[in-house]
């Protein structure tokens, strides 16, 4: 693992970009460029060399690393101490960095049971559009001093500031894990998933597609065994491989042609009929939809149940996110408060 503090170089590049009013495209490992709107900046600001774990105290359950640190390095270090990133972030390749992971804010199958990327964010150091280096949050679990800018950075696609480093809460790895499967139609699976989530069980993932409900259990060996006996179903030998493939979108479902939509809705929501096929993750709260339906129809279907949709992978990304008009003005003022010259990733967010 290489270590290098490139903060000064990054700040200087942002200062110059600001002086010239020349926007920057922020890049880490370039593994998630497919997501969001098209970036219109020509000049690249690379964070890939700005890397290294700065602090890690297993007894504090906190790790601090530079933005360009490969996600793989972080996972490896944590594994040595039987700890993990609780939000189980997808990497989409081997080049994913911590900064990109947080800027996108994606969370894996464990999310409903352990928390999201933003839930684990404790603090960060950023550079704003004025080339000022700022610290927010910290390295402790409870901290309510000042506005929660650290969590605001998660999912902002780099448009509010350049992440230099971040401190994340980590979790101990469970002693045991087990995956159960049973054949169920989609509506039955949805009901079953919500029934399970209403009970105190050591659940850590719940998915459904291709007519199979899959349940992951995590915890003490005895607790996992007792819960498995209560839930029933076939024990899957390749459970870990399955959840990895789901998280990394390596399942055949994701390779099928057509637009791929991501719908975040209440876990028991019944969506109005849209053409296509769907995969349920997050115990029903996340729906992956392959459909030819027009963007407005998908956005409307999600909105009708109080949720939202984003076009994850598709030909025409102009309507990837449907920004609520009431919020658009506020979001753009907020962006200007951090990046008054519009330097960072113009075009990635619709405001």
């Amino acid at each position, binding site marked *: 693992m290489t270590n290098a503090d490139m903060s000064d170089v990054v700040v200087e590049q942002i200062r110059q970009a600001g002086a010239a009013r020349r926007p920057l495209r922020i890049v880490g490992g370039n593994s998630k460029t497919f997501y969001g709107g098209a970036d219109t900046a020509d000049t690249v600001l690379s964070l890939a060399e700005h890397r290294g774990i700065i602090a890690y105290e297993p007894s504090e359950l906190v790790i601090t690393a530079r933005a360009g640190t490969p996600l793989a390095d972080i996972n490896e270090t944590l594994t040595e101490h039987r700890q993990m990133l609780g939000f189980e972030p997808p990497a989409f390749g081997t080049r994913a960095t911590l900064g990109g992971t947080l800027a996108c804010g994606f969370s894996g199958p464990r999310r409903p049971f352990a928390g999201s990327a933003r839930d684990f964010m404790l603090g960060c150091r950023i550079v704003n559009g004025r080339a000022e280096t700022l610290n927010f949050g910290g390295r*402790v679990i409870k901290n309510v001093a000042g506005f929660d800018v650290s969590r605001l950075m998660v999912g902002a696609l780099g448009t509010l500031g350049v992440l230099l480093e971040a401190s994340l809460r980590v979790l101990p790895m469970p002693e045991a894990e087990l995956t159960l499967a049973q054949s169920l139609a989609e509506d039955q699976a949805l009901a079953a998933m919500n029934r399970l989530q209403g009970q105190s069980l050591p659940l850590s993932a719940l998915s459904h597609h291709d007519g199979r409900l899959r349940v992951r259990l995590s915890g003490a060996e005895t607790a996992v065994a007792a819960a498995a006996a209560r839930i029933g179903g076939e024990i899957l030998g390749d459970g870990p491989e399955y959840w990895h493939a789901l998280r990394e979108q390596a399942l055949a479902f994701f390779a099928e042609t057509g637009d791929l939509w991501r719908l975040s809705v209440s876990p028991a929501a019944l969506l109005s009929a849209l053409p296509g096929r769907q995969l349920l993750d997050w115990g029903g709260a996340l729906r992956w939809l392959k459909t030819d339906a027009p963007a407005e129809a998908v956005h409307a279907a999600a909105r009708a149940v109080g949720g939202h949709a984003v076009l994850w992978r598709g030909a025409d990304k102009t309507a990837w996110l449907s920004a609520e008009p009431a919020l658009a003005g506020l979001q753009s003022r907020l962006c200007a408060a951090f990046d008054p010259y519009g330097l960072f990733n113009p075009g990635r967010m619709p405001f």
Partner: protein
Amino acid sequence: MTIASSFIRLCRQIVGDANVIADPALLRVYECDALAAYTQLPDLVVLPDSVEQIPAVLRLCHVHQIPVVARGAGTGLSGGALPVPGGIVLGLAKLNRILGVDPINRTATVQPGVRNLAISEAARPHGLYYPPDPSSQIACSIGGNIAENAGGVHCLKYGLTVHNVLQIKLATITGELLTLGGSGLDGAGYDLLALAIGSEGLLGVVVEATLRLLPTPPRVQVLLAAFATIEQAGAAVADIIGAGLIPAGLELMDNAAIRATEAFVHAGYPVEAAAILLCELDGQPEQVDADLARAEALLRAAGASEIRVAADAAQRQRFWAGRKAAFPAVGRIASDYYCMDGTIPRRHLAAVLAEIATLAERYGLSVVNVFHAGDGNLHPLILYDAGRPGDFDKAEALGGDILELCVRVGGTITGEHGVGHEKLPQMCVQFQAAELEQFHALKQAFDPDGLLNPGKAVPTLHRCAELGKMHVHGGRLPHPELERF
């Protein structure tokens, strides 16, 4: 009275005569929150009794440029609901309806004035509960919990308020109603929900919230471990977490706290111990059994002189009775106390407690410690006598020193109570000028005229300079061309 009578008339038109308080004798009730050391008589109190009235009142304040301080149950401990001169207090206590519990999706939708505990009571018939449990949960309201990002005993395992809210409706100062978050587990665009939570009433007024509910754990068990030294107890906390065990609660009481509570509630605590840890485990029965065995082994290895496992629910409640009665118990041994709230990395627990004792001695005051050790959230209770001239000033100065100590070891000046009015001086210690400027710029995006809870949570640079905490060197100030000092 600086508020014009014409403005008062317009308020009465919106909320009705009975819901506007202008009589100075009745205004007295609203002059402080639970931090009674700071008082300010409000000019006017407006108490909407329907959600629709809130945007209307805010719009009116915006048009007339009247500052607004939102107030829930008034249990805040940092002066966040302290009125501002020339402003109104917008009391939300009448909006106390639970709008619905959805047992299938495991959510509750409530108005801001609903008490924290009432949410779990409404969810109980469905086998569900709302996890964040501030100590004041019997009285505090969810709107205030959201404004302060409240914590509690169980947030080590179940998170703070920010981890348990799915959606809020926020009224802006211009009277718009924004929906932040959604029915799913995440929203789209910037995470304004996370930003609004803990923003201390500076960005908007929460008028409705949808909260996540969890299944009630079928089994709860509590261990009480006694230690001969604070160092051992502090090390035991780090050992437990480092070994991969995350208890539902892990609380520490020092000898002074043990003695005060034992004399008050007779919980059967070992009064000779330098410290006790209360360790709560919950979940599926098999999981609790496994965790209990590990916790006991870890506490024993850390040098616990005595370990008790509650034999039944009654004993479990007795173990907790002392912890829960700690504040009133301390109230019996001192005429006044001042409760601080800072967080530190757990591994510094013993050293920080020792340093607090040294500082207290220097000021000639006593400090009692009873706090959330599992997440390093300290609550030193500084004992003083308000009747003795200068005593409160000493307590305030000692409190400030303790918070600065927290920052020095890598912690923060507030873990769950908020900055409010109380901790403005220490904000200048934790944050640099450019960071405070960024906070002000962020606030402006929501409230350009600075009418929502002005002067709270984020100090002006001018104030920091006055307090001598902000060291500004020539070119390091972001906008040296602006006149500030």
